[in-house]
């Protein structure tokens, strides 16, 4: 029996000292629902997952 699909995961990324959200730019194509949080960048860098049909 196939297990039910898991809900979408929203991943919040926190960089090291001195880094900006640019640090995680290479991650975005690999994790489209990821969003970066820094002191100067609120977590809104990635679009919300699409509403299921």
């Amino acid at each position, binding site marked *: 029996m196939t*297990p039910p699909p*898991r*809900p*979408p*995961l*929203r*991943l*919040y*990324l*926190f*960089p*090291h*000292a*001195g*880094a*900006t959200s640019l*640090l*995680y730019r*290479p*991650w975005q194509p*690999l*994790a489209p629902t990821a*969003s970066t*949080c820094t*002191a*100067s960048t*609120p*977590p*809104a860098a990635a679009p*919300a*997952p*699409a*509403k*299921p049909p």
Partner: protein
Amino acid sequence: MTDYHALVKTLAAHLTADLLTTREHSGTLTYATFGHSFGATLSLAVAAAVTQETGQPPARAYLSAALPPRLQPPDNLADLPDEDLLAKTAADGGTPPQVLAHPAMRTLLLRMLRQDHTVRRAFPTEAATLQTTAPLTLIAARDDPYAPPEAMRQWAAHTTGPIRQVTIPGGHFAAIHHPRDTLALIAADTTGHPGDGTRRAETGEPHVP
């Protein structure tokens, strides 16, 4: 922003709003946090604040290349002269050379470094009692001089949930420099599938305190 509590509160408010908006779109939602070095302690503090606000802890918190707060040495880097702070940053290897070579980018980098290192001064005291119920995955690089794998295990005191420790090859920035592998670790925890990472990682036994 250089005040630890104010920063945690601000980021937690943004994250909570984002989480609730996303939940409206998707109907249901799970979230996880990943913090690297300075970002590790900050991410767990924000996750704890979001949990308090929403009642929903993260599905898992990923802590990379960081000592637990009470083991962190005093951070006086914000007091260094510009040249010394830039030299230390260049030697650590986490900042692209193009950023260090560009005058305007250097100015921005210095401002952000001083801001973050000032916040970090509060970690050993203010974050020492940080507690979560979330499962933790500790990502430790074998040759990280700042956060050796053995010391990272002591994050176990900060959760009542299960702990998984993964040791990866490389130094302090290994997890950041190999996003495909790091995201594969996350996929393995959150989807049950190992992803397509190619570097070898050693996984510790699950531990339930």
